[in-house]
């Protein structure tokens, strides 16, 4: 914690409240996202203006469609219509939460976008910030390691 505080003071882009590997989600977030016990969830934060998100989302949707893992998308667009348009355009089948009041994204406080969190039993198992070339392969490997 002390190290984290020092780093946060030195680098203003880091936040003290950012959820990291090993941190627990609040009961409120778990309830909002309807997370079930003993299931691994991939929580993906995205926005319609984020080009890397657009690239990754179809790959993440494939993972959800072949039932590799449960996926929850969290759209952070100011206007919900923009998010809905993107979901329709990319034909995303996984559940999407529209975080227009930014309560969820501010709780997670990701350090980059797109942001992918692996969560099991309310605990963050791993985090990926920024674009990953073949995110589907990466998630599959990570899920295999987790299971």
């Amino acid at each position, binding site marked *: 914690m002390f190290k984290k505080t020092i780093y946060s*003071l*030195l680098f*203003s*882009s880091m936040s003290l409240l950012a959820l990291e590997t090993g941190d627990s989600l609040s009961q409120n977030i778990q309830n909002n996202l309807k997370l079930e016990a003993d299931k691994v969830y991939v929580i993906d*934060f995205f*926005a319609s*203006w*984020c*080009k890397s998100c657009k690239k990754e989302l179809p790959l993440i949707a494939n993972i959800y469609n072949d039932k590799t893992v449960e996926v929850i998308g969290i759209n*952070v*667009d*100011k206007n919900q219509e923009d998010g809905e348009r993107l979901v329709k355009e990319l034909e995303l089948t996984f559940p999407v939460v529209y975080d227009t009041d*930014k309560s969820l*994204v501010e709780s997670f*406080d*990701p*350090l*980059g*976008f797109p*942001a992918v969190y692996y969560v099991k039993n309310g605990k963050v198992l791993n985090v990926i910030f920024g674009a990953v070339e073949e995110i589907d392969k990466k998630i599959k490997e990570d899920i295999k390691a987790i299971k």
Partner: protein
Amino acid sequence: MIKFLLLAMSASLFMGCSLIKEVKPWEKETLAKPIMQFGGLHPEVTKFESHVYFSKEASRGGSGVAGGGCGCN
């Protein structure tokens, strides 16, 4: 005493940093707009205008536009 002074100086330095509110990753919608890219919405137009300018003024540089420098390219 010196330690205290150092601590106070460090604290004031860090407080200065904290005055600047950071832009969070999910707040970068405006920054992600095409108009925000270097050279504006149509960088090719900016490049062309720059070419005309340095050809007329017989001077170039400082704008980051690549070219031959003779004004004939």
